[in-house]
């Protein structure tokens, strides 16, 4: 198995679609056939679209009693061999955290779409924010690595869903799509290609489902009902899943491998997009919806002859540090605009130690518009 080309389940062509719906379509194209969810603004349209489309593809849907049970049902379904996902926003994402850690520990592939709204707490349900970036990485207890993607358009909501399932199956890890209310609710053109690449789960009967000889390996994954007498446990376990509650060496080996299987393959996971970086003196590092404003700002400043560029992060976790470290050797100043009080900027500061790193924050529930970025850039250029 592994990567293979398949025909798109949606007829190829151009569609006019909402971001949340495009995400649902991308998931279906990638082979998602199980969805459990709980209503929440601004993510509900994903579930609504799934409900409309699943009967056509023999998908299984259940609306659960809360977000705790939604992610639990998704993990359970994933162990029957299905590609499974849920979708939520901040408050529900918080509730899912314990079971996301369980999915990490049991190496369960699953996809969680977090369509961010401004928080904390109930915040402003219909308005945009990106305050969950650090939560996506650190929200569950203990040490672990996950993968998080940051789409900026309707097209990328579709693409990110496909990629999220592929990475999730490839690395046996939860993948989080960090959308936001703006990219979730915007309507744009979506181009659906005739075929796409998907990753199908590797099976190897009799092999340990939770261990590999390599320190950074991804074990094959059997399903419930395969006759393998599986033991799946969130407790520290050996290669066959048997609990090892009091053996420190087993915990060290397991937790290190869970991290290394992501970190040592980071270059396969990182996706960034460079705009006008070659001669830039000041570079914007942006992600998600705000990157659209950043790109507009770069175009306008370039027309005025300013040497500015944009590095757009399509992958947020694992953090694309190599690209930024390399860039920091060539460029003296970074501006990181974010719809939060400064989250990714801390990662940039950590990585680009020699560069000047400035933050531009906004938490009023509106996207950051190009003019605000242009003003901040001019301040840094002068």
């Amino acid at each position, binding site marked *: 198995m592994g990567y293979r080309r398949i025909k798109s389940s949606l007829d190829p062509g151009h569609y006019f679609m909402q971001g949340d719906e495009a995400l649902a379509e991308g998931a279906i194209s990638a082979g998602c056939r*199980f969805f459990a969810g709980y209503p929440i603004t601004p993510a509900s349209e994903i579930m609504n679209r799934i409900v409309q489309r699943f009967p056509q593809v023999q998908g299984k849907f*259940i609306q659960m009693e809360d977000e705790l*049970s939604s992610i639990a*049902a998704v*993990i*359970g*379904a994933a162990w*029957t061999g299905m590609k499974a996902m849920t979708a939520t926003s901040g408050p529900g994402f918080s509730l899912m955290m314990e079971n996301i850690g369980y999915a990490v520990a049991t190496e369960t592939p699953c996809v969680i779409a977090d369509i961010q709204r401004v928080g904390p707490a109930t915040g402003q349900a219909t308005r945009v924010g990106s305050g969950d970036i650090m939560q996506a990485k650190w929200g569950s207890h203990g040490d672990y690595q996950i993968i998080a993607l940051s789409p900026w358009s309707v097209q990328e909501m579709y693409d990110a869903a496909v990629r999220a399932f592929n990475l999730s199956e490839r690395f046996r890890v939860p993948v989080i799509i960090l959308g936001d209310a703006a990219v979730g609710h915007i309507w744009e053109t979506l181009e659906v290609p005739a075929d796409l690449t998907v990753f199908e789960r590797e099976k190897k009967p009799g092999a340990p489902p939770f261990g590999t000889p390599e320190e950074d390996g991804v074990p094959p994954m059997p399903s419930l009902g395969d006759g393998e*007498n599986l033991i799946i446990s969130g407790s520290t376990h050996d290669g066959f899943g048997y609990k090892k509650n009091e053996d420190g060496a087993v915990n060290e080996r397991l937790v290190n491998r869970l991290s290394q299987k992501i970190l040592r393959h980071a270059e396969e996971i990182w996706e960034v997009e460079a705009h006008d970086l070659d001669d830039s003196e000041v570079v914007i590092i942006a992600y998600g919806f705000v990157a659209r404003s950043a790109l507009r700002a770069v175009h306008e400043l370039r027309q005025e002859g300013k040497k500015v560029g944009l590095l757009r992060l399509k992958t947020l976790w694992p953090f694309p540090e190599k690209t930024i470290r390399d860039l920091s050797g060539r460029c003296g100043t970074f501006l990181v605009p974010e719809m939060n009080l400064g989250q990714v900027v801390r990662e940039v500061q950590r990585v680009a130690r020699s560069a000047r790193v400035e933050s531009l924050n906004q938490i009023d529930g509106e996207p950051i518009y190009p003019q605000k970025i242009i003003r901040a850039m001019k301040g840094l250029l002068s």
Partner: protein
Amino acid sequence: MNKKYFSYMRPERYPHRLCPGCGHGIVQGAVIRALSEMETPLKELVLVAGIGCAGNITNMYIKADTIHVTHGRPLAFATGIKIANPQLNLLVISGDGDLASIGGNHLIHSARRNVDLTVVCANNGLYGTTGGQLAATTPLGAITSTTPQGNQEPPFDLCHLVAGAGGSYVARSSVAHPVHLIKTIKRAFSHKGFSFVDVISICPVQYGRRNHFRTPGEMIQWLRKNTIPKEKARTLSREERQGKIIMGEFCTEGDRTWTGDLST
């Protein structure tokens, strides 16, 4: 012991981790006997275990696919598994704290949906693993580590709770009645729909010692004396039923079941 039971066990994992005198060992024995006597196909069996002492009834000892999940969520995981693959037979074994307190919402909603799975609730009336704290099932007046003066909160009657929420097979048995227990587990497991068995278990270490039971045997004797069959309970007055544990089948409703399959 009947040799055929061994094919349902992972003998190399024994001795088990339960305390001496723990009632949960009797629950484990009853589950293994019931599965074996019904000749349940192991390949289609999925055991779902929660957190706590009762999680150790299944986890690692019974030779079938086993998923040991987060605290309170076994029914949510089981619902996902059953809907994703209705061919699998789900047996959820966990404790009263896991199923009825932290997981209470999933208990009532699984019962409401009448998801086709079986729950064996090993009900020892407190949180054993963490040191004997009050549970939603602790009897009135009982001393636990968090109710040193005696419990003032009325407990759940789990059978009434589950039947009220829509469970279609609801029964109570106890570890002092192993033959009845095996029979009840078999009836529950062969029922199509949400089946729930409230198994009154004993915790000599955390409960017995604090509540004047000198030995596990005394607790078993107490259970035998204080349980009455449902049929007999009907003939008693409210006062006479006070403090008694009523055993039997409370609900055996037909075949109304649901696996959430919108595609068919």
